[in-house]
Protein backbone atom coordinates (compact mmCIF):
# COMPACT_ATOMS: atom_id res chain seq x y z
CA UNK A 1 0.00 0.00 0.00
CA UNK A 2 1.52 3.25 -1.10
CA UNK A 3 1.50 6.50 0.82
CA UNK A 4 -1.17 8.06 -1.42
CA UNK A 5 -3.47 5.09 -0.90
CA UNK A 6 -3.11 5.27 2.90
CA UNK A 7 -3.78 9.01 2.79
CA UNK A 8 -6.85 8.49 0.61
CA UNK A 9 -8.27 5.85 2.94
CA UNK A 10 -7.57 8.03 5.96
CA UNK A 11 -9.17 11.16 4.48
CA UNK A 12 -12.24 9.34 3.20
CA UNK A 13 -12.82 7.52 6.47
CA UNK A 14 -12.30 10.67 8.52
CA UNK A 15 -14.61 12.63 6.23
CA UNK A 16 -17.34 10.01 6.57
CA UNK A 17 -16.90 10.06 10.35
CA UNK A 18 -17.21 13.86 10.47
CA UNK A 19 -20.32 13.72 8.26
CA UNK A 20 -21.80 11.19 10.67
CA UNK A 21 -20.92 13.47 13.56
CA UNK A 22 -22.71 16.36 11.85
CA UNK A 23 -25.86 14.25 11.51
CA UNK A 24 -25.62 13.25 15.16
CA UNK A 25 -25.04 16.86 16.17
CA UNK A 26 -28.08 18.09 14.27
CA UNK A 27 -30.10 15.34 15.91
CA UNK A 28 -28.91 15.92 19.48
CA UNK A 29 -28.30 19.64 19.91
CA UNK A 30 -31.05 21.39 21.87
CA UNK A 31 -31.82 24.61 19.97
CA UNK A 32 -31.53 25.96 16.47
CA UNK A 33 -28.29 27.96 16.83
CA UNK A 34 -26.47 25.03 18.38
CA UNK A 35 -27.80 22.70 15.68
CA UNK A 36 -26.33 25.12 13.21
CA UNK A 37 -22.90 24.78 14.84
CA UNK A 38 -22.93 21.06 14.08
CA UNK A 39 -24.70 21.43 10.75
CA UNK A 40 -22.31 23.99 9.29
CA UNK A 41 -18.79 23.35 10.55
CA UNK A 42 -18.93 19.59 10.53
CA UNK A 43 -20.61 19.19 7.12
CA UNK A 44 -18.18 21.63 5.52
CA UNK A 45 -15.03 19.94 6.80
CA UNK A 46 -16.60 16.50 6.33
CA UNK A 47 -17.40 17.18 2.68
CA UNK A 48 -13.94 18.64 2.09
CA UNK A 49 -12.17 15.62 3.57
CA UNK A 50 -14.47 13.07 1.96
CA UNK A 51 -14.38 14.55 -1.54
CA UNK A 52 -10.62 15.14 -1.50
CA UNK A 53 -10.13 11.59 -0.24
CA UNK A 54 -12.23 10.19 -3.09
CA UNK A 55 -10.29 12.43 -5.47
CA UNK A 56 -7.07 10.76 -4.34
CA UNK A 57 -8.53 7.38 -5.35
CA UNK A 58 -9.33 8.71 -8.85
CA UNK A 59 -6.87 11.53 -9.63
CA UNK A 60 -8.61 12.47 -12.90
CA UNK A 61 -11.74 13.46 -10.96
CA UNK A 62 -9.84 15.83 -8.72
CA UNK A 63 -10.59 19.18 -10.50
CA UNK A 64 -14.35 18.60 -10.50
CA UNK A 65 -14.34 17.45 -6.88
CA UNK A 66 -12.31 20.52 -5.89
CA UNK A 67 -14.92 22.65 -7.64
CA UNK A 68 -17.69 21.04 -5.55
CA UNK A 69 -15.57 21.63 -2.44
CA UNK A 70 -15.05 25.28 -3.40
CA UNK A 71 -18.78 25.83 -3.88
CA UNK A 72 -19.58 24.17 -0.56
CA UNK A 73 -17.02 26.22 1.37
CA UNK A 74 -18.27 29.45 -0.24
CA UNK A 75 -22.00 28.86 0.07
CA UNK A 76 -22.58 26.82 3.21
CA UNK A 77 -21.76 29.56 5.76
CA UNK A 78 -23.95 32.02 3.84
CA UNK A 79 -27.08 29.88 3.95
CA UNK A 80 -26.37 29.09 7.59
CA UNK A 81 -26.02 32.77 8.40
CA UNK A 82 -29.27 33.60 6.62
CA UNK A 83 -31.08 30.89 8.60
CA UNK A 84 -29.58 32.14 11.86
CA UNK A 85 -30.76 35.67 11.11
CA UNK A 86 -34.24 34.39 10.27
CA UNK A 87 -34.34 32.37 13.49
CA UNK A 88 -33.41 35.43 15.51
CA UNK A 89 -35.85 37.78 13.76
CA UNK A 90 -38.88 35.51 14.11
CA UNK A 91 -40.19 35.64 17.71
CA UNK A 92 -41.80 32.19 17.60
CA UNK A 93 -38.60 30.54 16.34
CA UNK A 94 -36.11 32.17 18.69
CA UNK A 95 -34.61 29.89 21.36
CA UNK A 96 -34.97 31.10 24.96
CA UNK A 97 -31.75 29.77 26.48
CA UNK A 98 -29.48 32.67 25.52
CA UNK A 99 -27.46 34.02 28.47
CA UNK A 100 -26.45 37.26 26.73
CA UNK A 101 -28.31 38.71 23.75
CA UNK A 102 -26.69 41.90 22.49
CA UNK A 103 -28.54 41.77 19.16
CA UNK A 104 -31.99 41.93 20.77
CA UNK A 105 -30.73 44.73 23.04
CA UNK A 106 -29.41 46.77 20.13
CA UNK A 107 -32.63 46.20 18.15
CA UNK A 108 -34.76 47.14 21.16
CA UNK A 109 -32.66 50.26 21.80
CA UNK A 110 -32.83 51.32 18.18
CA UNK A 111 -36.59 51.56 18.06
Amino acid sequence: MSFISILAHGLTGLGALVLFASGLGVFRMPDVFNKMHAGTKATTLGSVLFLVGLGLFEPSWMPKLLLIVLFIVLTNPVSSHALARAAHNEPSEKPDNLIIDDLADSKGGGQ
Partner: protein
Amino acid sequence: MSNTFLIIIFVLIGGGLFLSFLRLIIGRKATDRAVALDTTTLISTGFLVLVAFLQGRSLLLDVALVYSVLSFLGVLAIARYLDGGLK
Protein backbone atom coordinates in the same frame (compact mmCIF):
# COMPACT_ATOMS: atom_id res chain seq x y z
CA MET B 1 -10.75 0.31 -1.82
CA SER B 2 -11.58 -2.86 0.04
CA ASN B 3 -15.13 -4.03 0.63
CA THR B 4 -14.96 -3.66 4.41
CA PHE B 5 -13.82 -0.08 4.10
CA LEU B 6 -16.59 0.64 1.60
CA ILE B 7 -19.21 -0.78 3.94
CA ILE B 8 -17.86 1.29 6.85
CA ILE B 9 -18.08 4.49 4.80
CA PHE B 10 -21.55 3.58 3.59
CA VAL B 11 -22.81 2.93 7.10
CA LEU B 12 -21.30 6.16 8.46
CA ILE B 13 -22.74 8.37 5.72
CA GLY B 14 -26.08 6.58 5.78
CA GLY B 15 -26.21 6.94 9.56
CA GLY B 16 -25.51 10.66 9.39
CA LEU B 17 -28.14 11.05 6.68
CA PHE B 18 -30.67 9.10 8.70
CA LEU B 19 -30.09 11.08 11.91
CA SER B 20 -30.47 14.44 10.19
CA PHE B 21 -33.52 13.02 8.39
CA LEU B 22 -35.03 12.16 11.78
CA ARG B 23 -34.49 15.75 12.88
CA LEU B 24 -36.15 16.89 9.65
CA ILE B 25 -39.23 14.81 10.44
CA ILE B 26 -39.37 15.50 14.20
CA GLY B 27 -38.48 19.14 13.77
CA ARG B 28 -40.54 20.97 16.41
CA LYS B 29 -39.75 24.31 14.74
CA ALA B 30 -39.48 25.32 11.10
CA THR B 31 -35.90 26.59 11.43
CA ASP B 32 -34.84 23.27 12.98
CA ARG B 33 -36.19 21.54 9.90
CA ALA B 34 -34.45 23.99 7.60
CA VAL B 35 -31.10 23.37 9.32
CA ALA B 36 -31.72 19.63 9.04
CA LEU B 37 -32.52 20.03 5.32
CA ASP B 38 -29.25 21.93 4.84
CA THR B 39 -27.29 19.15 6.55
CA THR B 40 -29.17 16.44 4.66
CA THR B 41 -28.45 17.96 1.27
CA LEU B 42 -24.75 18.30 2.02
CA ILE B 43 -24.45 14.72 3.26
CA SER B 44 -26.36 13.54 0.19
CA THR B 45 -23.95 15.40 -2.05
CA GLY B 46 -21.22 13.21 -0.58
CA PHE B 47 -23.48 10.23 -1.13
CA LEU B 48 -24.09 11.13 -4.79
CA VAL B 49 -20.32 11.37 -5.32
CA LEU B 50 -19.94 7.96 -3.68
CA VAL B 51 -22.55 6.47 -6.04
CA ALA B 52 -20.70 7.99 -9.01
CA PHE B 53 -17.51 6.44 -7.61
CA LEU B 54 -19.16 3.01 -7.35
CA GLN B 55 -20.38 3.24 -10.96
CA GLY B 56 -16.92 4.44 -11.97
CA ARG B 57 -18.09 7.20 -14.36
CA SER B 58 -16.97 10.79 -13.87
CA LEU B 59 -19.97 12.01 -15.90
CA LEU B 60 -22.22 11.34 -12.93
CA LEU B 61 -20.36 13.96 -10.88
CA ASP B 62 -22.35 16.68 -12.66
CA VAL B 63 -25.40 15.66 -10.65
CA ALA B 64 -23.57 16.20 -7.36
CA LEU B 65 -22.27 19.55 -8.63
CA VAL B 66 -25.75 20.76 -9.60
CA TYR B 67 -27.16 19.58 -6.32
CA SER B 68 -24.51 21.27 -4.18
CA VAL B 69 -25.09 24.59 -5.97
CA LEU B 70 -28.88 24.55 -6.05
CA SER B 71 -29.57 23.13 -2.59
CA PHE B 72 -27.84 26.23 -1.28
CA LEU B 73 -30.37 28.31 -3.20
CA GLY B 74 -33.29 26.33 -1.81
CA VAL B 75 -32.13 26.76 1.79
CA LEU B 76 -31.45 30.45 1.17
CA ALA B 77 -34.99 30.88 -0.18
CA ILE B 78 -36.45 29.20 2.90
CA ALA B 79 -34.33 31.41 5.14
CA ARG B 80 -35.43 34.55 3.29
CA TYR B 81 -39.05 33.44 3.60
CA LEU B 82 -38.78 32.87 7.36
CA ASP B 83 -37.05 36.24 7.59
CA GLY B 84 -40.00 37.95 5.86
CA GLY B 85 -38.16 38.79 2.65
CA LEU B 86 -40.41 36.96 0.14
CA LYS B 87 -43.59 38.98 0.12
